[in-house]
Protein backbone atom coordinates (compact mmCIF):
# COMPACT_ATOMS: atom_id res chain seq x y z
CA UNK A 1 0.00 0.00 0.00
CA UNK A 2 1.20 3.49 -0.80
CA UNK A 3 2.58 5.63 1.94
CA UNK A 4 0.43 8.51 3.01
CA UNK A 5 1.23 11.76 1.30
CA UNK A 6 3.61 10.34 -1.30
CA UNK A 7 2.92 11.26 -4.86
CA UNK A 8 1.92 8.21 -6.84
CA UNK A 9 0.97 9.55 -10.20
CA UNK A 10 2.21 13.07 -10.17
CA UNK A 11 1.02 14.68 -13.31
CA UNK A 12 3.37 17.50 -13.83
CA UNK A 13 1.93 18.87 -16.97
CA UNK A 14 2.17 22.28 -18.41
CA UNK A 15 -1.55 22.91 -18.15
CA UNK A 16 -4.41 22.40 -15.80
CA UNK A 17 -5.85 19.02 -16.47
CA UNK A 18 -8.97 18.32 -14.47
CA UNK A 19 -8.54 14.95 -12.82
CA UNK A 20 -11.37 12.43 -12.62
CA UNK A 21 -12.45 13.88 -9.29
CA UNK A 22 -13.10 17.24 -10.87
CA UNK A 23 -16.47 17.28 -12.49
CA UNK A 24 -18.61 20.21 -13.41
CA UNK A 25 -18.71 21.09 -9.73
CA UNK A 26 -18.14 24.61 -8.57
CA UNK A 27 -14.43 24.61 -8.12
CA UNK A 28 -13.26 24.14 -11.68
CA UNK A 29 -14.66 27.50 -12.61
CA UNK A 30 -12.45 29.66 -10.39
CA UNK A 31 -9.43 27.64 -11.43
CA UNK A 32 -10.15 28.41 -15.07
CA UNK A 33 -10.32 32.04 -14.14
CA UNK A 34 -6.84 31.75 -12.71
CA UNK A 35 -5.65 29.78 -15.69
CA UNK A 36 -5.92 32.94 -17.73
CA UNK A 37 -3.18 34.63 -15.73
CA UNK A 38 -1.02 31.71 -14.67
CA UNK A 39 1.37 30.26 -17.15
CA UNK A 40 2.72 27.20 -15.31
CA UNK A 41 0.08 25.42 -13.22
CA UNK A 42 0.23 21.73 -12.46
CA UNK A 43 -1.86 19.17 -10.61
CA UNK A 44 -0.72 16.26 -8.61
CA UNK A 45 -2.92 13.50 -7.28
CA UNK A 46 -1.83 11.82 -4.13
CA UNK A 47 -3.26 8.87 -2.25
CA UNK A 48 -3.95 10.53 1.07
CA UNK A 49 -6.29 8.35 3.14
CA UNK A 50 -6.18 4.57 3.16
CA UNK A 51 -9.39 2.54 3.22
CA UNK A 52 -9.51 1.57 6.93
CA UNK A 53 -8.97 5.22 7.86
CA UNK A 54 -11.77 6.34 5.55
CA UNK A 55 -14.24 3.73 6.84
CA UNK A 56 -13.44 4.52 10.45
CA UNK A 57 -13.74 8.25 9.79
CA UNK A 58 -17.19 8.06 8.21
CA UNK A 59 -18.52 5.66 10.84
CA UNK A 60 -17.55 8.19 13.48
CA UNK A 61 -19.77 10.83 11.89
CA UNK A 62 -23.11 9.28 12.91
CA UNK A 63 -21.60 7.66 16.02
CA UNK A 64 -20.36 10.95 17.47
CA UNK A 65 -23.46 12.93 16.57
CA UNK A 66 -25.68 10.31 18.22
CA UNK A 67 -23.42 9.99 21.27
CA UNK A 68 -23.30 13.76 21.80
CA UNK A 69 -27.05 14.25 21.38
CA UNK A 70 -28.10 11.26 23.48
CA UNK A 71 -25.49 12.32 26.04
CA UNK A 72 -27.15 15.73 26.32
CA UNK A 73 -30.45 13.90 26.89
CA UNK A 74 -28.85 12.00 29.79
CA UNK A 75 -27.30 15.20 31.17
CA UNK A 76 -30.78 16.78 31.19
CA UNK A 77 -31.91 14.24 33.81
CA UNK A 78 -29.62 15.92 36.34
CA UNK A 79 -28.42 19.16 34.75
CA UNK A 80 -25.52 19.96 37.07
CA UNK A 81 -21.84 19.05 37.38
CA UNK A 82 -19.62 18.67 40.45
CA UNK A 83 -16.15 17.61 41.52
CA UNK A 84 -15.35 14.70 43.83
CA UNK A 85 -17.62 11.77 44.60
CA UNK A 86 -20.89 13.40 45.53
CA UNK A 87 -23.39 15.89 44.18
CA UNK A 88 -24.07 18.47 46.88
CA UNK A 89 -26.43 20.87 45.18
CA UNK A 90 -24.82 23.93 46.72
CA UNK A 91 -21.40 22.93 45.42
CA UNK A 92 -22.16 22.60 41.72
CA UNK A 93 -19.54 23.76 39.21
CA UNK A 94 -22.19 24.13 36.54
CA UNK A 95 -25.94 23.99 36.55
CA UNK A 96 -28.51 24.69 33.86
CA UNK A 97 -31.98 25.09 35.33
CA UNK A 98 -35.32 26.80 34.80
CA UNK A 99 -36.05 29.46 37.44
CA UNK A 100 -38.89 31.77 38.32
CA UNK A 101 -38.03 35.37 37.40
CA UNK A 102 -39.26 38.26 39.55
CA UNK A 103 -42.11 39.02 37.18
CA UNK A 104 -43.30 35.42 37.43
CA UNK A 105 -41.96 34.31 34.06
CA UNK A 106 -39.91 31.15 33.85
CA UNK A 107 -36.40 31.78 32.58
CA UNK A 108 -33.43 29.55 31.82
CA UNK A 109 -30.42 30.18 34.04
CA UNK A 110 -26.95 28.76 33.48
CA UNK A 111 -24.67 29.01 36.50
CA UNK A 112 -20.93 28.51 35.95
CA UNK A 113 -18.71 28.59 39.05
CA UNK A 114 -21.24 30.79 40.82
CA UNK A 115 -21.75 33.23 37.93
CA UNK A 116 -25.31 33.31 36.64
CA UNK A 117 -26.23 33.87 33.01
CA UNK A 118 -29.72 34.08 31.57
CA UNK A 119 -29.93 31.61 28.71
CA UNK A 120 -33.69 31.43 28.11
CA UNK A 121 -34.60 29.94 24.74
CA UNK A 122 -31.57 27.69 24.53
CA UNK A 123 -30.35 26.49 27.93
CA UNK A 124 -32.56 25.89 30.95
CA UNK A 125 -35.86 26.85 29.39
CA UNK A 126 -36.76 26.46 25.74
CA UNK A 127 -39.97 26.15 23.75
CA UNK A 128 -42.14 26.36 26.84
CA UNK A 129 -40.32 23.55 28.59
CA UNK A 130 -37.88 23.55 31.50
CA UNK A 131 -34.95 21.52 30.24
CA UNK A 132 -31.19 22.06 30.23
CA UNK A 133 -30.44 21.39 26.56
CA UNK A 134 -33.20 22.14 24.04
CA UNK A 135 -35.17 19.51 22.12
CA UNK A 136 -33.23 20.11 18.90
CA UNK A 137 -30.00 19.08 20.60
CA UNK A 138 -31.12 15.81 22.19
CA UNK A 139 -31.96 12.26 21.11
CA UNK A 140 -34.81 11.60 21.48
CA UNK A 141 -36.21 15.10 21.33
CA UNK A 142 -38.68 14.60 24.19
CA UNK A 143 -37.44 14.21 27.80
CA UNK A 144 -36.85 10.47 27.89
CA UNK A 145 -33.86 9.35 29.95
CA UNK A 146 -34.38 5.59 29.43
CA UNK A 147 -34.38 5.94 25.63
CA UNK A 148 -31.45 8.37 25.68
CA UNK A 149 -29.46 5.77 27.62
CA UNK A 150 -30.40 3.03 25.15
CA UNK A 151 -29.06 5.09 22.24
CA UNK A 152 -26.00 6.22 24.16
CA UNK A 153 -24.88 2.84 25.49
CA UNK A 154 -25.45 1.08 22.15
CA UNK A 155 -23.47 3.62 20.13
CA UNK A 156 -20.83 3.85 22.85
CA UNK A 157 -20.03 0.21 22.09
CA UNK A 158 -19.82 0.90 18.35
CA UNK A 159 -17.63 3.97 18.98
CA UNK A 160 -15.27 1.98 21.21
CA UNK A 161 -15.04 -0.96 18.79
CA UNK A 162 -14.41 1.40 15.85
CA UNK A 163 -11.83 3.29 17.89
CA UNK A 164 -9.99 0.12 18.91
CA UNK A 165 -9.86 -1.19 15.33
CA UNK A 166 -8.67 2.21 14.06
CA UNK A 167 -6.01 2.50 16.76
CA UNK A 168 -4.71 -1.00 16.11
CA UNK A 169 -4.55 -0.29 12.38
CA UNK A 170 -3.03 3.16 12.83
CA UNK A 171 -0.28 1.78 15.04
CA UNK A 172 0.42 -1.30 12.89
CA UNK A 173 0.50 0.69 9.64
CA UNK A 174 2.57 3.45 11.27
CA UNK A 175 -0.16 5.96 10.43
CA UNK A 176 0.31 7.34 13.96
CA UNK A 177 4.09 7.70 13.89
CA UNK A 178 4.41 8.60 10.24
CA UNK A 179 1.47 10.93 9.64
CA UNK A 180 0.03 12.05 12.96
CA UNK A 181 2.70 12.62 15.58
CA UNK A 182 4.51 15.91 14.76
CA UNK A 183 8.09 15.48 13.55
CA UNK A 184 11.03 17.70 14.48
CA UNK A 185 10.57 19.58 11.21
CA UNK A 186 6.91 20.15 12.04
CA UNK A 187 7.82 21.63 15.38
CA UNK A 188 10.09 24.10 13.66
CA UNK A 189 7.25 25.26 11.42
CA UNK A 190 4.92 25.67 14.40
CA UNK A 191 5.15 29.47 14.54
CA UNK A 192 4.67 29.85 10.81
CA UNK A 193 1.70 27.51 10.76
CA UNK A 194 0.13 29.21 13.78
CA UNK A 195 0.48 32.66 12.16
CA UNK A 196 -1.00 31.36 8.91
CA UNK A 197 -4.01 29.98 10.80
CA UNK A 198 -4.46 33.04 13.00
CA UNK A 199 -4.45 35.43 10.06
CA UNK A 200 -6.53 33.00 7.96
CA UNK A 201 -3.90 32.84 5.26
CA UNK A 202 -3.61 29.83 3.07
CA UNK A 203 0.10 29.27 3.01
CA UNK A 204 1.77 26.63 0.95
CA UNK A 205 2.04 24.31 3.89
CA UNK A 206 -1.72 24.25 4.34
CA UNK A 207 -2.38 21.92 1.57
CA UNK A 208 0.87 20.16 1.21
CA UNK A 209 0.95 16.41 0.86
CA UNK A 210 0.83 15.69 4.58
CA UNK A 211 -0.81 17.37 7.52
CA UNK A 212 0.57 20.62 8.91
CA UNK A 213 1.82 20.81 12.46
CA UNK A 214 -1.37 22.26 13.96
CA UNK A 215 -3.42 19.53 12.29
CA UNK A 216 -1.05 16.89 13.62
CA UNK A 217 -1.22 18.26 17.15
CA UNK A 218 -5.01 18.42 16.99
CA UNK A 219 -5.48 14.90 15.61
CA UNK A 220 -2.95 13.45 18.02
CA UNK A 221 -4.64 15.18 20.97
CA UNK A 222 -8.05 13.88 19.92
CA UNK A 223 -6.79 10.36 19.27
CA UNK A 224 -4.47 9.92 22.24
CA UNK A 225 -6.06 12.12 24.90
CA UNK A 226 -9.65 13.24 24.28
CA UNK A 227 -11.08 10.01 22.85
CA UNK A 228 -9.53 7.69 25.48
CA UNK A 229 -10.53 10.13 28.22
CA UNK A 230 -14.16 10.27 27.11
CA UNK A 231 -14.34 6.47 27.11
CA UNK A 232 -12.58 6.09 30.47
CA UNK A 233 -14.72 8.75 32.18
CA UNK A 234 -17.81 7.09 30.70
CA UNK A 235 -16.73 3.75 32.15
CA UNK A 236 -15.85 5.36 35.48
CA UNK A 237 -19.49 6.34 35.93
CA UNK A 238 -20.35 2.63 36.05
CA UNK A 239 -20.59 1.33 39.63
CA UNK A 240 -19.60 -2.16 38.45
CA UNK A 241 -16.49 -0.92 36.61
CA UNK A 242 -15.57 1.09 39.71
CA UNK A 243 -15.60 -2.20 41.62
CA UNK A 244 -13.49 -4.00 39.01
CA UNK A 245 -11.02 -1.14 38.46
CA UNK A 246 -11.03 0.88 41.71
CA UNK A 247 -8.01 3.05 40.80
CA UNK A 248 -9.84 4.56 37.83
CA UNK A 249 -12.05 6.80 39.98
CA UNK A 250 -9.13 7.68 42.25
CA UNK A 251 -7.15 8.90 39.24
CA UNK A 252 -10.09 10.82 37.80
CA UNK A 253 -11.03 12.54 41.06
CA UNK A 254 -14.30 10.82 41.95
CA UNK A 255 -17.51 9.75 40.30
CA UNK A 256 -18.92 13.25 39.86
CA UNK A 257 -15.52 14.47 38.66
CA UNK A 258 -15.56 11.72 36.04
CA UNK A 259 -19.00 12.93 34.93
CA UNK A 260 -17.68 16.51 34.70
CA UNK A 261 -14.62 15.44 32.66
CA UNK A 262 -16.91 13.36 30.42
CA UNK A 263 -18.96 16.51 29.76
CA UNK A 264 -15.86 18.66 29.09
CA UNK A 265 -14.37 16.11 26.70
CA UNK A 266 -17.74 15.94 24.94
CA UNK A 267 -17.54 19.66 24.27
CA UNK A 268 -13.89 19.27 23.23
CA UNK A 269 -15.28 16.94 20.56
CA UNK A 270 -17.99 19.44 19.65
CA UNK A 271 -15.36 22.19 19.26
CA UNK A 272 -13.10 19.90 17.25
CA UNK A 273 -15.92 18.86 14.93
CA UNK A 274 -16.96 22.48 14.30
CA UNK A 275 -13.41 23.65 13.50
CA UNK A 276 -12.74 20.51 11.48
CA UNK A 277 -15.83 21.02 9.30
CA UNK A 278 -15.09 24.74 8.84
CA UNK A 279 -11.54 23.89 7.75
CA UNK A 280 -12.79 21.21 5.37
CA UNK A 281 -15.10 23.76 3.76
CA UNK A 282 -12.52 26.54 3.74
CA UNK A 283 -9.71 24.53 2.16
CA UNK A 284 -11.51 23.02 -0.80
CA UNK A 285 -14.68 21.25 0.24
CA UNK A 286 -15.14 18.99 -2.79
CA UNK A 287 -11.49 17.98 -2.96
CA UNK A 288 -11.42 17.22 0.77
CA UNK A 289 -14.63 15.20 0.65
CA UNK A 290 -13.38 13.33 -2.43
CA UNK A 291 -10.13 12.47 -0.71
CA UNK A 292 -11.94 11.12 2.36
CA UNK A 293 -14.29 9.09 0.12
CA UNK A 294 -11.89 7.80 -2.56
CA UNK A 295 -8.56 8.36 -0.84
CA UNK A 296 -7.26 10.54 -3.67
CA UNK A 297 -6.45 14.15 -2.99
CA UNK A 298 -5.64 16.67 -5.68
CA UNK A 299 -2.86 19.15 -5.01
CA UNK A 300 -2.81 21.98 -7.50
CA UNK A 301 0.33 24.03 -7.76
CA UNK A 302 -0.36 27.29 -9.48
CA UNK A 303 2.74 29.39 -9.88
CA UNK A 304 1.08 32.68 -10.43
CA UNK A 305 3.15 35.76 -10.97
CA UNK A 306 0.35 38.26 -10.42
CA UNK A 307 -0.77 36.87 -7.06
CA UNK A 308 1.45 35.86 -4.20
CA UNK A 309 -0.75 33.10 -2.79
CA UNK A 310 -0.11 29.66 -4.09
CA UNK A 311 -3.43 27.94 -4.59
CA UNK A 312 -3.92 24.31 -3.90
CA UNK A 313 -6.82 22.24 -5.03
CA UNK A 314 -9.13 25.16 -5.36
Amino acid sequence: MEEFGRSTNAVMRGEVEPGPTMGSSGWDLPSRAIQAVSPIPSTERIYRHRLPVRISHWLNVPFLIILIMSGLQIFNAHPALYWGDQSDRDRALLSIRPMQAEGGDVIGVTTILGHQFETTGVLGYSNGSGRAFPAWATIPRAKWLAMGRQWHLFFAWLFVINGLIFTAYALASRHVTHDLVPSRNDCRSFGKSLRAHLFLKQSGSWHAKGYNVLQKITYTTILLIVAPLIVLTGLAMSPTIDTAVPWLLTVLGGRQAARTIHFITCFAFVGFILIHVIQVIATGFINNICSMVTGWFTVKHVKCTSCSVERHGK
Partner: protein
Amino acid sequence: MIPQQQSMKRRQFLKGTVGAASVVALSGCDNLTQSSWFPSILSKAERLTEVVQRAITPRDALAKEYQEVDISTIFPANGNTDPGTVEYAEHVGQKFADWTLEVVGLVKTPRSWSLAALKELPARTQITRHDCVEGWSAIGKWTGAPIGDLMHQVQPLPDARYAVFHCADVDDEGIAYYESMAVADCYHPQTILAYELNDTPLDVPHGAPLRLRFERQLGYKQAKYVMKIELVESLAGIGGGKGGYWEDQGYEWYAGI
Protein backbone atom coordinates in the same frame (compact mmCIF):
# COMPACT_ATOMS: atom_id res chain seq x y z
CA MET B 1 -16.78 38.48 -9.97
CA ILE B 2 -17.80 35.07 -11.05
CA PRO B 3 -15.73 33.08 -8.53
CA GLN B 4 -17.20 35.04 -5.64
CA GLN B 5 -20.75 34.55 -6.82
CA GLN B 6 -19.98 30.91 -7.19
CA SER B 7 -18.65 30.62 -3.66
CA MET B 8 -21.67 32.52 -2.33
CA LYS B 9 -23.94 30.04 -4.02
CA ARG B 10 -21.89 27.21 -2.67
CA ARG B 11 -22.12 28.61 0.85
CA GLN B 12 -25.90 28.97 0.55
CA PHE B 13 -26.12 25.45 -0.76
CA LEU B 14 -23.98 24.10 2.07
CA LYS B 15 -25.98 25.97 4.68
CA GLY B 16 -29.20 24.58 3.28
CA THR B 17 -27.83 21.07 3.05
CA VAL B 18 -26.44 21.02 6.58
CA GLY B 19 -29.66 22.50 7.99
CA ALA B 20 -31.87 20.07 6.11
CA ALA B 21 -29.63 17.14 7.01
CA SER B 22 -29.85 17.90 10.73
CA VAL B 23 -33.65 18.19 10.60
CA VAL B 24 -33.92 14.93 8.66
CA ALA B 25 -31.44 13.23 10.99
CA LEU B 26 -33.30 14.34 14.13
CA SER B 27 -36.77 13.37 12.96
CA GLY B 28 -35.20 10.20 11.57
CA CYS B 29 -33.88 9.36 15.04
CA ASP B 30 -37.29 10.02 16.57
CA ASN B 31 -38.95 7.80 13.96
CA LEU B 32 -36.47 5.04 14.75
CA THR B 33 -37.16 5.47 18.47
CA GLN B 34 -40.90 5.10 17.83
CA SER B 35 -40.49 2.05 15.60
CA SER B 36 -41.01 -1.43 16.95
CA TRP B 37 -37.74 -2.93 15.70
CA PHE B 38 -35.06 -0.31 16.38
CA PRO B 39 -35.22 -0.09 20.20
CA SER B 40 -34.96 -3.88 20.33
CA ILE B 41 -31.64 -3.62 18.45
CA LEU B 42 -30.45 -0.88 20.80
CA SER B 43 -31.29 -3.06 23.79
CA LYS B 44 -28.84 -5.73 22.57
CA ALA B 45 -26.06 -3.57 24.03
CA GLU B 46 -27.34 -4.35 27.54
CA ARG B 47 -26.52 -8.05 27.21
CA LEU B 48 -23.06 -7.28 25.82
CA THR B 49 -22.41 -4.86 28.69
CA GLU B 50 -23.54 -7.47 31.22
CA VAL B 51 -21.38 -10.24 29.77
CA VAL B 52 -18.27 -8.06 29.57
CA GLN B 53 -18.72 -6.44 32.97
CA ARG B 54 -19.34 -9.77 34.68
CA ALA B 55 -16.27 -11.22 32.95
CA ILE B 56 -13.92 -8.49 34.16
CA THR B 57 -15.38 -8.04 37.65
CA PRO B 58 -14.34 -10.59 40.29
CA ARG B 59 -17.51 -12.11 41.74
CA ASP B 60 -16.93 -10.97 45.28
CA ALA B 61 -15.12 -7.70 44.50
CA LEU B 62 -16.45 -5.06 46.87
CA ALA B 63 -17.78 -1.67 45.88
CA LYS B 64 -15.65 1.04 47.44
CA GLU B 65 -16.43 1.64 51.10
CA TYR B 66 -15.98 5.19 52.37
CA GLN B 67 -15.15 6.82 55.71
CA GLU B 68 -17.60 8.40 58.14
CA VAL B 69 -16.43 11.88 57.08
CA ASP B 70 -17.50 11.19 53.49
CA ILE B 71 -21.17 10.64 54.40
CA SER B 72 -23.46 13.04 52.51
CA THR B 73 -25.22 15.65 54.64
CA ILE B 74 -28.33 15.17 52.54
CA PHE B 75 -29.09 11.76 51.06
CA PRO B 76 -31.79 12.50 48.45
CA ALA B 77 -34.89 10.32 48.54
CA ASN B 78 -35.95 9.67 44.96
CA GLY B 79 -38.81 7.79 43.34
CA ASN B 80 -41.68 6.93 45.66
CA THR B 81 -41.14 8.60 49.02
CA ASP B 82 -44.22 7.16 50.72
CA PRO B 83 -46.18 4.08 49.67
CA GLY B 84 -49.31 5.94 50.77
CA THR B 85 -51.50 2.87 51.27
CA VAL B 86 -53.73 2.28 54.29
CA GLU B 87 -51.88 -0.91 55.19
CA TYR B 88 -48.52 0.80 55.09
CA ALA B 89 -49.80 3.73 57.17
CA GLU B 90 -50.85 1.20 59.84
CA HIS B 91 -47.36 -0.29 59.84
CA VAL B 92 -45.91 3.19 60.27
CA GLY B 93 -48.29 3.75 63.19
CA GLN B 94 -47.10 0.52 64.84
CA LYS B 95 -43.46 1.34 64.13
CA PHE B 96 -43.32 -1.71 61.83
CA ALA B 97 -43.70 -4.12 64.78
CA ASP B 98 -45.71 -6.53 62.60
CA TRP B 99 -43.65 -6.15 59.42
CA THR B 100 -42.54 -9.50 58.07
CA LEU B 101 -40.24 -10.46 55.26
CA GLU B 102 -41.23 -13.58 53.38
CA VAL B 103 -38.84 -15.59 51.23
CA VAL B 104 -40.80 -17.86 48.92
CA GLY B 105 -40.82 -19.47 45.48
CA LEU B 106 -38.18 -21.91 44.26
CA VAL B 107 -36.64 -22.63 47.66
CA LYS B 108 -36.37 -25.76 49.73
CA THR B 109 -37.69 -24.22 52.94
CA PRO B 110 -39.74 -21.06 52.50
CA ARG B 111 -39.84 -18.95 55.62
CA SER B 112 -40.45 -15.48 56.96
CA TRP B 113 -38.68 -13.17 59.37
CA SER B 114 -40.10 -10.46 61.54
CA LEU B 115 -38.22 -7.19 61.48
CA ALA B 116 -36.95 -7.93 64.99
CA ALA B 117 -35.71 -11.36 63.89
CA LEU B 118 -33.84 -9.84 60.95
CA LYS B 119 -32.15 -7.39 63.28
CA GLU B 120 -30.92 -10.30 65.41
CA LEU B 121 -29.07 -11.85 62.49
CA PRO B 122 -25.40 -10.92 62.07
CA ALA B 123 -25.49 -7.44 60.57
CA ARG B 124 -23.25 -5.77 58.00
CA THR B 125 -22.52 -2.05 57.98
CA GLN B 126 -21.15 -0.39 54.86
CA ILE B 127 -20.55 3.21 53.84
CA THR B 128 -21.14 3.22 50.11
CA ARG B 129 -21.91 5.50 47.20
CA HIS B 130 -25.36 5.46 45.68
CA ASP B 131 -25.28 6.32 41.96
CA CYS B 132 -28.63 7.40 40.57
CA VAL B 133 -29.41 6.74 36.92
CA GLU B 134 -30.10 10.46 36.61
CA GLY B 135 -26.45 11.23 37.33
CA TRP B 136 -26.21 12.30 40.97
CA SER B 137 -24.37 10.43 43.73
CA ALA B 138 -24.68 10.36 47.51
CA ILE B 139 -22.80 8.49 50.22
CA GLY B 140 -24.63 6.79 53.07
CA LYS B 141 -23.96 4.32 55.87
CA TRP B 142 -26.20 1.29 55.64
CA THR B 143 -26.74 -1.45 58.20
CA GLY B 144 -28.68 -4.59 57.44
CA ALA B 145 -28.85 -8.33 57.06
CA PRO B 146 -26.82 -9.91 54.23
CA ILE B 147 -29.27 -11.54 51.84
CA GLY B 148 -26.77 -14.36 51.32
CA ASP B 149 -27.40 -15.41 54.95
CA LEU B 150 -31.14 -15.59 54.27
CA MET B 151 -30.46 -17.64 51.13
CA HIS B 152 -28.37 -20.15 53.10
CA GLN B 153 -31.38 -20.69 55.34
CA VAL B 154 -34.05 -21.09 52.63
CA GLN B 155 -31.78 -22.97 50.17
CA PRO B 156 -32.69 -21.96 46.61
CA LEU B 157 -33.56 -24.83 44.25
CA PRO B 158 -31.35 -25.38 41.19
CA ASP B 159 -34.02 -23.86 38.89
CA ALA B 160 -34.05 -20.55 40.76
CA ARG B 161 -32.40 -17.92 38.55
CA TYR B 162 -33.83 -14.64 39.79
CA ALA B 163 -34.71 -13.17 43.16
CA VAL B 164 -37.72 -10.85 42.84
CA PHE B 165 -38.21 -8.18 45.49
CA HIS B 166 -41.86 -7.28 46.03
CA CYS B 167 -42.42 -3.91 47.64
CA ALA B 168 -45.19 -2.15 49.52
CA ASP B 169 -45.34 0.91 47.29
CA VAL B 170 -47.68 1.44 44.37
CA ASP B 171 -47.48 4.33 41.92
CA ASP B 172 -50.26 6.80 41.02
CA GLU B 173 -51.67 4.30 38.55
CA GLY B 174 -51.75 1.50 41.11
CA ILE B 175 -48.78 -0.40 39.65
CA ALA B 176 -46.82 -2.18 42.38
CA TYR B 177 -43.10 -1.57 42.65
CA TYR B 178 -40.79 -4.56 42.33
CA GLU B 179 -37.21 -5.32 41.42
CA SER B 180 -35.09 -8.36 40.67
CA MET B 181 -31.51 -9.58 40.53
CA ALA B 182 -29.70 -12.78 39.64
CA VAL B 183 -29.76 -15.28 42.53
CA ALA B 184 -25.95 -15.42 42.31
CA ASP B 185 -25.79 -11.68 43.11
CA CYS B 186 -27.76 -12.28 46.34
CA TYR B 187 -24.63 -13.91 47.77
CA HIS B 188 -22.42 -10.85 47.24
CA PRO B 189 -21.27 -9.73 50.71
CA GLN B 190 -22.54 -6.16 50.18
CA THR B 191 -26.01 -7.23 49.05
CA ILE B 192 -28.04 -6.53 52.18
CA LEU B 193 -31.54 -5.74 53.33
CA ALA B 194 -30.85 -2.49 55.15
CA TYR B 195 -32.87 -1.31 58.15
CA GLU B 196 -30.62 1.59 59.17
CA LEU B 197 -29.28 4.61 57.33
CA ASN B 198 -26.53 6.59 59.08
CA ASP B 199 -27.10 4.77 62.40
CA THR B 200 -30.83 5.54 62.62
CA PRO B 201 -33.73 3.32 61.58
CA LEU B 202 -34.73 3.94 57.97
CA ASP B 203 -37.29 6.71 57.59
CA VAL B 204 -40.27 6.46 55.26
CA PRO B 205 -38.75 8.44 52.33
CA HIS B 206 -35.69 6.16 52.32
CA GLY B 207 -37.68 2.91 52.35
CA ALA B 208 -38.68 2.00 55.90
CA PRO B 209 -38.47 -0.54 57.30
CA LEU B 210 -36.40 -2.57 54.79
CA ARG B 211 -34.66 -1.61 51.61
CA LEU B 212 -32.35 -3.45 49.29
CA ARG B 213 -28.72 -2.42 48.92
CA PHE B 214 -27.21 -3.92 45.78
CA GLU B 215 -24.07 -1.85 45.69
CA ARG B 216 -22.58 -2.59 42.31
CA GLN B 217 -25.62 -1.39 40.36
CA LEU B 218 -27.52 1.87 39.88
CA GLY B 219 -29.97 3.47 42.30
CA TYR B 220 -33.18 2.26 40.72
CA LYS B 221 -32.27 -1.33 41.63
CA GLN B 222 -32.23 -0.43 45.37
CA ALA B 223 -35.85 -1.37 46.07
CA LYS B 224 -37.52 0.25 49.10
CA TYR B 225 -40.33 -1.07 51.39
CA VAL B 226 -39.38 -4.73 50.72
CA MET B 227 -42.03 -7.23 51.87
CA LYS B 228 -41.24 -10.41 50.01
CA ILE B 229 -38.42 -12.09 48.12
CA GLU B 230 -39.62 -14.58 45.53
CA LEU B 231 -37.21 -16.91 43.75
CA VAL B 232 -38.24 -17.68 40.19
CA GLU B 233 -36.93 -19.29 37.04
CA SER B 234 -38.22 -16.62 34.69
CA LEU B 235 -39.23 -12.98 35.02
CA ALA B 236 -42.02 -13.33 32.45
CA GLY B 237 -45.45 -12.93 34.00
CA ILE B 238 -44.26 -10.76 36.87
CA GLY B 239 -45.31 -7.12 36.46
CA GLY B 240 -44.50 -6.11 32.90
CA GLY B 241 -42.14 -9.05 32.52
CA LYS B 242 -38.90 -7.08 32.34
CA GLY B 243 -37.80 -7.70 35.92
CA GLY B 244 -38.66 -4.44 37.63
CA TYR B 245 -40.85 -1.37 37.82
CA TRP B 246 -38.28 0.82 36.03
CA GLU B 247 -37.25 -1.97 33.68
CA ASP B 248 -40.87 -2.19 32.51
CA GLN B 249 -40.50 1.48 31.53
CA GLY B 250 -37.44 0.95 29.38
CA TYR B 251 -34.54 1.02 31.83
CA GLU B 252 -31.98 -1.78 31.66
CA TRP B 253 -32.39 -4.80 33.91
CA TYR B 254 -28.60 -5.02 34.13
CA ALA B 255 -27.89 -1.64 35.71
CA GLY B 256 -24.10 -1.91 35.99
CA ILE B 257 -23.56 1.31 34.03
